[in-house]
């Protein structure tokens, strides 16, 4: 093929990308100009470029705040645990579901476990306070019948992060299961037949055929979620936390929200946001590199 023809061939491809490109330039790259206020004492009437430049003052101010270390720690602990738990559970559930004989039962269970995903945290927040209550909650009643002392899930700093992670998993595992189940269904049936001929039992089939068949998608999901290492879940925390668990429940995003939109400290809030973006950038770069090196997989 000569070069001209090749170029001509490419034109439609560029045209296809153009709309998305224009949109992200306007709505994603455009606002990045605003990052400048992280270094300013931002006065709205003076605009982004007329406000007073204060260098790293906003960052110093943030670092001087008493809670900042705790907030960072909370964010990372909650986010990392969510990633790990959120990876294993759906894979296991997908494998278990695959073992069910009856298609109708399978579908009924699937339909049920996806359900929480459709409810937003606004709604779940209210419901969870009810069912996790130490005195009258459903969960503690079950634990009580097993002889366990009531647990104060949403009001005890020893339990709060655990509760956040479990409820998040509960909400999302069904949804993630879709993807893994899909991967399982797409495994070539001939491979199983060959394995049965070789005398492999179900466990061995799972281990040697199903799991390797899911490998790529598992890596993809992991890598994509690693970029979220500082995303501990604004929607969830915002709707579940309360003053006594700020110590373990306040995260970067809730902090930025309060600082920026409630206290109107635009400069410092942007500074925290910028810091978060930079750290995320490092994490995601490292994880893409690892995925490529360890699994030989490049996501794009």
């Amino acid at each position: 093929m000569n070069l001209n023809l090749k170029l001509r061939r490419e034109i439609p491809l560029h045209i296809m990308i153009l709309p998305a490109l224009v949109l992200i330039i306007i709505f994603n790259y455009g606002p990045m100009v605003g990052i400048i206020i992280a270094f300013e004492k931002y006065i709205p009437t003076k605009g982004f470029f007329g406000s007073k430049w204060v260098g790293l003052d906003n960052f110093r101010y943030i670092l001087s705040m008493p809670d900042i270390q705790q907030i960072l720690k909370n964010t990372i602990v909650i986010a990392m645990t969510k990633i790990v738990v959120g990876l294993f559970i759906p894979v296991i559930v997908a494998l278990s579901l695959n073992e069910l004989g009856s298609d109708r039962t399978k579908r009924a269970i699937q339909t049920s476990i996806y359900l929480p995903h459709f409810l937003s945290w606004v709604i779940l927040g209210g419901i969870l306070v009810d069912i996790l209550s130490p005195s009258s909650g459903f969960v503690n009643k079950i634990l009580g019948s097993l002889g366990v002392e009531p647990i104060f899930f949403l009001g005890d700093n020893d339990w709060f992060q655990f509760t956040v992670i479990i409820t998040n998993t509960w909400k999302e595992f069904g949804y993630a299961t879709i993807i893994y189940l899909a991967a399982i269904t797409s495994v070539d049936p001939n491979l199983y037949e060959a394995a049965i001929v070789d005398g492999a039992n179900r466990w061995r089939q799972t281990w040697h055929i199903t799991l390797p068949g899911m490998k790529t998608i598992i890596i993809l999901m992991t890598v994509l979620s690693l970029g979220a290492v500082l995303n501990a879940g604004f929607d969830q925390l915002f709707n579940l936390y309360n003053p006594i668990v700020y110590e373990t429940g306040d995260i970067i995003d809730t902090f930025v929200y309060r600082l920026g939109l409630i206290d109107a400290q635009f400069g410092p809030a942007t500074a925290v946001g910028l810091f978060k973006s930079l750290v995320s950038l490092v994490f995601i770069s490292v994880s893409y590199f690892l995925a490529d090196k360890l699994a030989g997989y490049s996501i794009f």
Partner: protein
Amino acid sequence: MKKSKGRIFFEIYNYSILVSMAALCLFPMIHVLAVSFSSGSAAAAGWVSLWPVDFTLSSYTFVLEKADFISSLMVSFQRLFWGLIASLTITIITAYPLSKGKRDLRIRGIYIWVFIFTMLFNGGLIPTYMIIKETGLLDSIGALVIPCAVNVYFIILLMNFFKNIPKSLEEAAFIDGAGHWTTLFKIYLPLSLPALATITLFISVFHWNSWFDGLIYMNRPENYPLSSFLQTVVIQRDLTFITDTREIEMLSKVDGKTVKSAQIFLGALPILAVYPFLQRYFVKGITLGSVKG
């Protein structure tokens, strides 16, 4: 095939675990439903668990006569409609070129990075708000649909799916004189229906559940999509400056738990009704880049 003893034990165990998981997931919605059909005082007292107490339809008649609830519901449907059109179109036409190799699209690497970068960095809420304002989208469905039409996550999912469509099909089409557009619509899309069904669901859920942007970009509560509206409903009011008894009387009437529950349930109903049917597609045939790396 005869089942071994161990297999039978496993299956019983497996069934019970999965069934109780399913029950656990259904519980909250059933609770909401039960509360919405209960009398106000029983619900406020917390006596309702999984079955209505003093069954009544009054909260539903109240909600269905509430103008702002109905208008929010309509806004949500509009958002869903336009959101699906915008996001699906963009996702499809962007995923296709990006699924090509470097041989077919030489600056693919740059494009990819330009897209990926937006997943890592954002300018924050206030500059974004200003852009939305400057583009004249404020207080329109556009503000809820256009800025989020490009979802890099969905694009990557579809791109990986496209990558697994055999190259030979495409080459055959080219030999027949088809261009990229024809190839995309005549060959890629028909082969990608399960993936498209999944992405359609992803997009729908995204639009249905988003609440924050509605609160920020819409200028009237009656223009809020349902999720934003519900957020304002379930939140608690500040009573510090309310001293008037008449005010409190009015608040206690609209703040009822059963009314909230009825709204929550009605808000979830459309998706609950639709999604079990979509499920058939995405469980059956989604490969999503899982055949090979």
